[in-house]
Each structure stands twice: as structure tokens, then as C-alpha cells.
């Protein structure tokens, strides 16, 4: 055994085995390979899309000046993303507040849980865009309708995870609270909230991901401003390279959002390895 391990060590230098180097390096190689294959496919005529080199050439302006400001809807891709983010922030904040509150109430009461569980189960799988017409009908305006779609998309996983979190509070913690006759407030603050936080953040992470998915689709339909509209607009103008670069940004922002919520969750539950 020992001799084999020695042989392996000789083959790969120690610095290359550092996890960060490994990850970044291999990731970089992966991206390069991906672009290479793409380029090849286009060159061979198998893919009717602009090649990566073409994309970079076409969207130089967009990449270099993300916060360019023109007239009307003509704005840099950075602005478009910020607009979308503003809607998501609004809708998601509502969803977080309402979802956690409802989840705590329903989770704490078996009666309410039994009453509302069917509603949750039916509304949860409704696709985000299916909400758009009804919210347009209700709000008679694009902006609140878009925010509402974000809200309604994100709220279900938040509610459901909070409910589970409250229901999963270990019996022992509840027993301790019962023996000590903790007041409702003390129980809420010292037991229920900390015990539920990890579940809530699972819900928030799913929620933020879904919100970002929903906003792009919603904006394509609503129009006006935002990254979704930007993509739709580019399609209408046959600017395929712009679509490609926009998609890249959408993915990047989604990743950053997810990581932000995850980090926040980790920060808040620090010290309580639940």
C-alpha cells in the first residue's frame, strides 16, 4: 500500500493538489474546453449560432459599458439586471416576510396545518408564469404584477420549509420549554426561531432561485425594462450574441443570489450546528 501511495504522489506535484488550485484550475480548463467545442461546432457548421469569438466581438460594447444610458428603453445590461433585481428584491422580501410568518403559524398549529395543507399542495406546483395573467388582471399594471409573480413563486417553498422547521422542533426542546413554563414570547424567541432558522434558509434559497427564474420569464412577457425584456428585445432584433451574453449574466447573478442567501443563513445560524 505504502509504495503505491508514494508513486501517486510523485506523479502529481503537491501544489497542484491544493483544493483551490485544483478547483479553479480544472474549472478554467472546463470552460476552455466548452468554448473550444462550441467554436468547433460552429466552424463545422453544425451549430447555427455565433461562435464564441463572434460573441465577444459583437458584444464588446455591452461588456465594456454595462451602465450605458441611452434614451427610452435603451440602457446597458447592468441597468437591466439592476431593474430585474429591484423587482426580485421587492417580491422576494414580501415573500420572505409573509412566508415565514404564515409558516410559523401553520407549523405551530396542527389544526391550521390540516386546514391549509391542501391549499399549499395544490398551489405550490403552479408554474410562475401561470400566475402572470391573473396578477395582471388583479393589478391592472405591469410593475406590481411582475413583483406579485415573484412573490407568489417564492412564497411556497418558504412557507413549506418554515412549516417543516417548526414541526421538526425536537420534542426535547418543547419539553424543556414546558417544564420551565416559558412564556409564549420566550418560547418563540429562544426556542422556535433559532430551531427553525436552518429550515427557513433552505426555503429562502429555493425561493430566491425560483424568483430569478420567474423574473426573466415574466419580463419577457411584460416588456419595458429588465434583463428578461432585454433578451426578448435582442431576439426581436436578431442580436443572438447579445442573448448569449445576457444568458451568461443571468446565470451569474442567479449563482451570486443563491450564494448570498446561503452565506447569510450560515452567518445567522453560526454556533448552532443543528
Amino acid at each position, binding site marked *: 500500500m505504502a509504495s503505491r501511495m508514494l508513486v501517486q504522489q510523485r506523479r502529481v506535484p503537491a501544489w497542484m493538489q491544493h483544493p483551490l488550485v485544483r478547483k479553479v484550475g480544472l474549472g478554467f480548463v472546463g470552460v476552455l474546453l466548452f468554448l473550444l467545442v462550441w467554436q468547433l461546432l460552429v466552424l463545422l457548421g453544425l451549430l447555427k449560432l455565433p461562435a464564441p469569438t463572434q460573441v465577444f466581438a459583437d458584444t464588446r460594447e455591452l461588456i465594456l459599458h454595462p451602465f450605458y444610458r441611452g434614451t427610452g428603453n435603451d440602457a446597458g445590461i447592468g441597468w437591466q439586471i439592476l431593474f430585474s433585481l429591484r423587482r426580485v428584491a421587492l417580491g422576494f422580501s414580501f415573500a420572505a416576510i409573509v412566508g415565514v410568518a404564515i409558516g410559523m403559524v401553520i407549523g405551530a398549529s396542527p389544526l391550521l396545518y390540516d386546514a391549509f395543507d391542501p391549499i399549499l399542495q395544490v398551489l405550490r406546483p403552479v408554474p410562475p408564469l401561470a400566475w402572470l395573467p391573473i396578477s395582471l388582471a388583479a393589478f391592472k399594471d405591469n410593475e406590481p404584477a411582475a413583483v406579485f409573480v415573484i412573490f407568489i413563486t417564492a412564497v411556497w417553498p418558504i412557507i413549506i420549509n418554515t412549516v417543516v422547521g417548526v414541526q421538526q422542533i*425536537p420534542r*426535547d*426542546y418543547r*419539553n*424543556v420549554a*414546558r*417544564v*420551565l*413554563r*416559558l*412564556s409564549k414570547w*420566550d418560547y418563540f424567541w*429562544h*426556542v422556535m426561531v*433559532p*430551531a427553525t432558522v436552518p429550515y427557513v434558509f433552505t426555503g429562502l434559497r429555493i425561493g430566491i432561485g425560483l424568483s430569478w427564474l420567474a423574473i426573466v420569464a415574466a419580463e419577457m412577457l411584460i416588456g419595458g425594462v429588465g434583463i428578461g425584456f432585454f433578451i426578448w428585445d435582442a431576439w426581436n432584433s436578431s442580436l443572438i450574441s447579445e442573448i448569449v451574453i445576457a444568458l451568461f449574466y443571468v446565470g451569474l447573478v442567479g449563482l451570486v443570489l443563491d450564494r448570498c442567501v446561503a452565506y447569510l443563513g450560515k452567518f445567522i*445560524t453560526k*454556533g*448552532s*450546528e*443543528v
Partner: protein
Amino acid sequence: MAKPLIEIDHVDMVFTLPDGQRYPALKDIHLEIHEGEFVALLGHSGCGKSTLLNMVAGFLRPTAGGVVLRGRQVTEPGPDRMVVFQNYSLLPWKTVYDNVALAVRAVFPRLSKAAQHQRIQTALEQVHLWGAQHKYPAQLSGGMQQRVAIARALAITPQVLLLDEPFGALDALTRGSLQEELMAVCQTVGMTCLMVTHDVDEALLLADRVVLLTNGPNARIGQILKVPFPRPRSRHEVVHHPSYYTLRQQVVDFLQQQRRRRAVAVRSAAGTGTRKVAVGFLPLTDCAPLVVAQAEGIFAEYGLEVDLCQENSWADLAEGVLSGRLQAAQMLAPLPLALAVGCQDQPPQPALKVPLVLSRNGNGITVSRALYEQGVTDVAACKDYIARTGERLVLGVVHPASMHNLWLRYALASAGMDPDQDVELVVAPPAQMVYHLEAGHLHGFCVGQPWNTYAERRGLGKCISTSLDWWAGHPEKVLAVHRGWANDHPDLEVALVQALMRAGERCDIPKQRPAIAELLSRPEYLHLEPDLIRPGFAEPLATESHYPRLHQFAVGQASSPLPAEGVWILTQLARWGLTPLPQNWWEVVHTIYALDVFIQAAQALGRPDTIPERRQFALADGVLFDADNPLAYLEQFPIRRAIDYRTVCLVEREESPCVP
């Protein structure tokens, strides 16, 4: 006696299972816990001991009966009954300090910040964790976490501390040190504790009383052991205490018996509706009538299919009949009466009836070889020996409610010794006495034959007296039957009594005895050489010329239960504080002694069916006992405990509750 701090008052617990079936977990549990006492609940897992604890804690409401703390019924959990859970139950997002602080602030909200802090610090110092107060539970070992949980409990000074297998999840080393720490803390604070455990040594180390629960369903209190080790205790002293091993053996035997019980229960349940009867016995010479009736087909003549069940101890036998696992049993004469009036703080339980005396006499007192050689040749000589050496003699008896215990105490007291102070009396099953004598746990014992002879033959001890010296013709073993079974099967009960009367008559024919000794020696009964069984039974005992009177089964109406003797037994049980002395003593004796069944059986056999109307008699010391005036008889004894003289309610609880 002072009012108990906690009274678990005839509690039943029935769970409704998810499929709608009802599972009776606990049945008629009665337990009183006094201030400052440490009580351990011991039993196999699933027997309902945690259920019982949870009822005291208030997490569960009993189906019947109730739990009373300081005169107030327990209806919900509260900080006066703080619980230490097996899995610590600390809040992981709070530091050690904040975990304790949460409890202190919840229970003492009006206390100043400084006073609250003082409480928290004191509690953490008591468990030696001051210094780790800013750590999170996840940073601590299991043992340290449980110490935090104990500190949290101590910090709010509950009236009783409830511990639910607190050390069950810890490794042996940590468990040991935590046990000693808990013991030290409880002793300094004088905390009342109720602890659930399945660790025999833990129970014996920590508890003042060990409550043994039978297996469920319908788990009951099988036995309560007083743990006599002086406090403050240390593990070393406890383990080397002379009665440690006898106590430990008793507990282990009980638990083993419970394990076997399920198989037997299945067997006897199959026999309902037939003429099957499970009869319990202990391997002793005077189980001869049962063995003869079985081996010679007398039971079969009466159409009985008897299953003779050998048990470990008298407590097991009593538990067996009370639980319905056995329908009848050979039993110590005082035991059914003691149960009926409530032995050792247990509620009255008139569930057994006595239609027949199985044997009279047959006991002996044996002292160790060493003691005998130092001049202890009779019981009175113990006094000189104790005065000379200052040694505290440890003597074994087979059960608190046994003629052995009553005799040994009577004899010691007659010789001017207080059996509770001058010597130590411990309980051990008859078959284990010789082992304990050999191991040096006992200096002597009072036990039935053949165990005295066995000790002598092995050169370990010397039999210095037989019960003939004390009371020739004393009732020794009786037939106890379960009242409920007898009510359902009156014909079987009479048949059983008839068969045993005839077997007893057979055992009293001297010519038959060598053959019976042979029979008893078989592995399924005594599993001893016939040589050891014959002395006193089929040939004179070395020191005696009494043969064959040492064992009487039928001669001279020996088999009829005499109520006056029952009253005498009641006086002696009360004399030593084992039971109250019932004001309604005649009622008690006549309820337990089923004279009607005896008469019916005697008539059917064509034997004399009159019970001698004897109300006065005297033991060998000549002191006259008048069954119409038991209190006067008791009061003339200079050495006795305070007499608890009161009316004992004999109605079985299910039928009509007894209002005091």
C-alpha cells in the same frame, strides 16, 4: 410518618395505539416518595418506567388515579418537577451560561440580575463547569453536556428532580464519575430525586429505595427494595457493604424472572377454558405436597392439568400470582396477609386467598462455622458475641413477610437484641443463602430445609435451632390462589385443595418419606442429593430428636388454616413496622383465609371438616396470645416499632373505590 412529598396514587395508564387498540401500560401503581429521598425506578426497557416518570413530570395524564405533589394534583409540567433528559436537551444555539440563564430567568423573573447571575454561577460551580460557561454545547463532551443539564435543573431549585436514564448515553467511565457527582450534589442540597434507570449498580449506588417494575402490559410495582447503605456513600463503601451482593442478586433475579415471564404468560394464556393451572413453587423440602401430587398423578385424578413453575424467590412468586401469570402458588404463610393489609407502604392488596396450609415447621437458623466456633451456639449467644466483638452481624431471611423473618426477629428480641439496630437483616432467596454464607456476605441465616443441612454438610455453617424450639406446629407454607381465578373456577380451586390435602397426607406417612426425598432430589425440583434432603424429613436431623415433626403436612389437622394464627402473624408484621395492625383484624384474616373452600374440600374427601375454635395459644416461651386482643399482646413486647393501628380497607379497588 410525615406526609409524603409525592404520592403516585393508584395510577393506571392506557395508551390508545394508532390502530385504535388500547394498550394498558401501567396498572395500579402506588408509590410514595418522601422529602430528601432518592428513588430509582428499575425494569426492562418498555416496561413503562419512563411513562411513570413522565406522569410525575406532568407530560402525561394518567388514565386513572393521580399524582399529588405536596397535596396538589399534578396536571401539567412545571419547574417544581425539573426533568433531566437522557439526551441532555440543551439548546445548541445558546452557550452553557445562557442555557442555565434561560431557566433561571423563566423561573425567577423578579430576581435581580445579580442574584440571577449568582444562581447560575453557583449551579455551574456545583457541577464543576464554571470556566466553560461561554462554550456552546456542541463544543462539550456528552458527559459535560449532561452536567450542564443537571446544573440547569439545580439552578431553579425544584422540589423534586426527575432523571430519565440520565447517564444511559454515556460511556462507563464518564457515567461513573457523573453518578458520584450527582450523588454528592443531591446529598449536599438534600434533593428529592426520582430516577429511571436500567443499571442495577447505578440504582443501588444512588437510591434509598429501588422500585422494580414488572414487564408490561399492565406493568405493576413488582418489588420495592430498601437500600440500607449509610450516607454519605462512596462507590467503594457501597460495593464492599456486606449486603450489596444479596441486594444486587435480588434485583438481577427479579429482572431475569421478568424476562422469562413473557414465555410463561403465553403458555398459560393458551390454557384458558381448560383445566390447566399454573402453580408456582420454590425448591424446598416442604414443597413436597406439590411434587407428590404432580408426580404421583393426584392432580390428574382430580382432572387438573397442573404446570408446576419453579420460581427464583418469594417476591417472584407473589408477583406471579398477583399478575395472573400463576393461578396458585406455595407461599409463605405471612405473605398473603401482609399483601392484604399493605406491606412496606404498599397499598392493601387482598387479591390472594388461602384455602389450605401446606406445611408446618421446617425452618432452621444456621450460623457460619466461624461464628459457631466463637460460641454462638444459640440465638441468645449472638448478644454476647456482638458485645464482645462489636461486629454488626448480617443475617439472611427469605422475605420480609416470612415466618423466618418473624421468628428470627422474635428470637433476637427475646434475647434482648433489636433486630433493626443490633444486627442487619437482609433478604435473599432460600436457594442462594448457602452461596452468600460461603461468600461471606452473611454471618448466618434463617431458612427452610434442606438448606440448613446443605450448609452443614459443606462445612460452612452449623444449624443452631429449628423452628420447633420456637413454636412447634407454626404454619409455614400455605396455598395461595388468585381470588379472581378462584371466582371464575370454583370447581378447580376445590379440586386443587383436595389434591393437595391428599398429597399432604401421603407426605406424612413416615414409610413414604425416603421415596419422596428421592423424588424431590430430581433435577426439576431440588436438584440435590437425596442425602441432603433426608435429614429432618426422612431421618432425624443431627441435632434433633424431633423427627418426623420437623415437617408436618396433614397430621393433627395441620392443613387447616387457623384464623387465630393469622391474627398472630398480623401482630408480628405490625410489631416490626412492616404493615399496619388492622383494627378489623378478624375481617382481614377471614377474608384471606378461605375456610369455606377448605371445609368443602375436607367434606368431599370425608375428612374432619371442623376448624378448631382456638383463640388463645402460646409459643414455646409460654407468653399467652389472645387473638381477641392483639394490641395488648403486642404492647407487652419491650422491643418493637411504633404500631400503626388502623382500619384497613379490603375492597378491591376496581369494584368500589374506598373513600377514607
